[in-house]
């Protein structure tokens, strides 16, 4: 076969590969459009309407209400505190989760005795449904007869008898964060542990021979090699905690004094307590934009992940 024939054959094969790739991508594109993009566009559209439960039940279209849903949100003073609470929760939990998860992963990676058993047992919180986790932690933190109150009483020798983490607006968010960390750290640890396996031992050994101490080896070799795993782990954590609802609803209901009212709680109350889906959609739209901005910034920071 001459060179022209080979080129034509190569071109045909290239076109066929492209078509085949497209055929493989089509289901994913279809599913993304049908189940993600269309609902998002629909939700944004409804956020500009007076759209309530009766509209759905009676199959009546919503009515354009001149941005009233957004105006109400900004005028009633609920939106900004909810945004602030959401960001505090997300950043607090994501950072704590990463630090604690990494610490656990490093410990387990040393192959200490019983590490296999610990790896198995530590997944239990992750398996427990979030709602159940919320209920368990709510009862543990219960202010009058909870286990934590009792333990604090015993440990302090009776000096602190009224420990009530969920009752204090200043500490309630920390209480919910404890429950979130308890549930989410196992998965983060497991992912980071898998990432640690990718760090080449010869590099660590060479660095050690060159005189690098443990801290230097961790920051200049281990962490850079784990960058891609860290990016995935942290992104998952950001998204998981941005949309955290069951823990807040079961443990505090957004209280006390709205100190744990996040965007998820606000959205639920607007849509399903007030039965105002238009207003709920407006909260969801702002919420989604927040998440997009945070993930975008995060991705910019972690742009170069290749090693």
């Amino acid at each position, binding site marked *: 076969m001459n060179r022209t024939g080979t080129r034509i054959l190569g071109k045909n094969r290239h076109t066929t590969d492209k078509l085949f790739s497209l055929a*493989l991508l089509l289901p994913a594109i279809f*599913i993304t459009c049908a189940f993600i993009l269309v609902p998002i566009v629909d939700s944004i559209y409804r956020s500009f309407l007076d759209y309530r439960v009766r509209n759905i039940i009676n199959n009546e279209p919503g009515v354009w209400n001149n941005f009233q849903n957004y105006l109400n949100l900004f005028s009633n*003073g609920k939106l900004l505190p909810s945004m602030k609470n959401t960001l505090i929760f997300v950043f607090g939990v994501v950072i704590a989760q990463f630090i604690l998860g990494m610490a656990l992963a490093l410990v387990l990676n040393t192959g200490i005795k019983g590490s296999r058993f610990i790896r198995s047992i530590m997944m239990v919180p992750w398996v427990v449904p979030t709602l159940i986790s919320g209920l368990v932690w709510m009862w543990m933190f219960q202010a*009058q*007869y909870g286990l934590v109150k009792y333990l604090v009483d015993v440990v302090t020798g009776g000096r602190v008898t009224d420990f009530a983490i969920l*009752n204090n607006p200043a500490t309630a968010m920390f209480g919910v964060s404890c429950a979130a960390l308890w549930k989410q750290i196992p998965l983060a640890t497991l992912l980071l542990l898998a990432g640690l396996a990718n760090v080449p031992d010869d590099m660590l050994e060479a660095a050690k021979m060159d005189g690098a101490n443990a801290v230097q080896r961790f920051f200049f070799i281990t962490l850079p090699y784990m960058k891609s795993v860290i990016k995935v782990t942290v992104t998952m954590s950001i998204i998981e905690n941005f949309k955290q609802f069951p823990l807040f609803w079961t443990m505090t209901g957004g209280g006390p004094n709205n100190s744990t009212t996040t965007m998820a709680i606000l959205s639920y*109350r607007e849509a*399903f*307590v*007030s039965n105002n889906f238009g207003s709920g959609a407006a909260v969801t739209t702002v919420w989604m934009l927040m998440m997009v901005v945070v993930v975008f910034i995060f991705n910019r920071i972690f742009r170069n992940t290749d090693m």
Partner: protein
Amino acid sequence: MKKRALALTMATAMVLTTACSGGGGSQTDTTAAAAAETAADTEAAGGEEASAGTEASGEPVTIQVANYALLEAGYDTFWEGVKTGFEEKYPNVTIEWVTAPYGDILNQVINMAGGGDRVDCIFSEMIWIPSLVDAGLAAPLDEVLDEDFLNDYYPNVLEAHSVDGKVYGAPLYISPFVLFYNKDLFEQAGLDPENPPTTYDELLEVAPKLAALTTEDGNKVYAFGQPTASVAVVGSSLQSFAMNFGGTLFDENNQFNVDNQGFTDAMNMLQQLDELGYNPQNTKPKDLRNLFALGQLAMYYDNTWGFNGVTSINPEAANFAATAMPLSGGSGDGQVTLQSHCFVAVDNGEAQLEAVKNFIQYVISPEVLEDYLANIAPAYAAKGAMEDMDAIVNNEFLQGGQGAIEKAVPVYQFPTLNDFNLELCALGQAITVGKEDVATAIEGFKSSVQSILP
């Protein structure tokens, strides 16, 4: 090539299985997804579809009754008995329960209706009525129930279950927020167990003695309990608390107005009780029931059926629990709000409505409710036909709070009442655990409810 064909086949299969997973249509969940994270999680489980087109009364009719109580210990047996008894009396009617946990049932009903599957009847809290009316689900009961049956209700009870002058709820029984108190703790504190306080001033006099007590295992005893946690029904309780002082949240024209002395007095008292450590902070009704049952709470406000929750924790509580009239404070005379468990009917056609009418009128009768009120959930009569029932007249526990019914004032019912109540809870939290100044907190409350006022 084979690999490509396999990949293509798998991709197609993925699309088909995903598409199929969205199915489920208008089937009904009858199996109670108790651990459902949200009402939306509840899936269909193959119930027989109601025969809405049935017209002749003798033809088989299936009615779907939404009822959270079937998932609650102590109530399930009664409701299964109701189904058996009713189906024996009306052999052409089959009851199909639609269940979900208490906190999810309202959304369950609304979500089902949104999907085209409307239940026929709802066992409802009184405060859910406006949401159901707003959703277009509740049928006016003067078009459903017999005139005699409806007119037998007390006028203030009918008014409490009305929206815009139309009655939408048929209560099985009623209860104001009455004062539960522990006679044993009163005795231990050297107080007369037959004479509980009648005013908040008297409460402040006896509270130090009660708060000085401890339980046998050394736990603190709280003198008084008024819940403030973020639960809609707690908002109703706080409305009742404000009424004790003559406070109101809406004026006679149903315009929002909390600029009255009674409301401010009530909030000041709530703050004072918190600062003195008499009131356990940020509690739900079930927290107070727990504390009361375990002898850690001397007095608290509850609906009389809360007695069931108390005795299910500690059966011995029946020996020390008693009710009393709600306290009065400031210039108020101890007025209260009313609560009930009621039926709401949904108009799904003539045959369904007829069956629902028979069902409601069957259940709300002395014969069916006698045992329930005597042994499960003590409460007061909502209508004349029930006022002489043994379970009510001879129930010693109910006696102390009996007069509160005459002081019961209907609460203004509007579609966002539940959210409004949650904001009221936030106000209660602001002046207690939030340590905010009462006047500032009330201003914050006024601002936060503006967008949800009718």
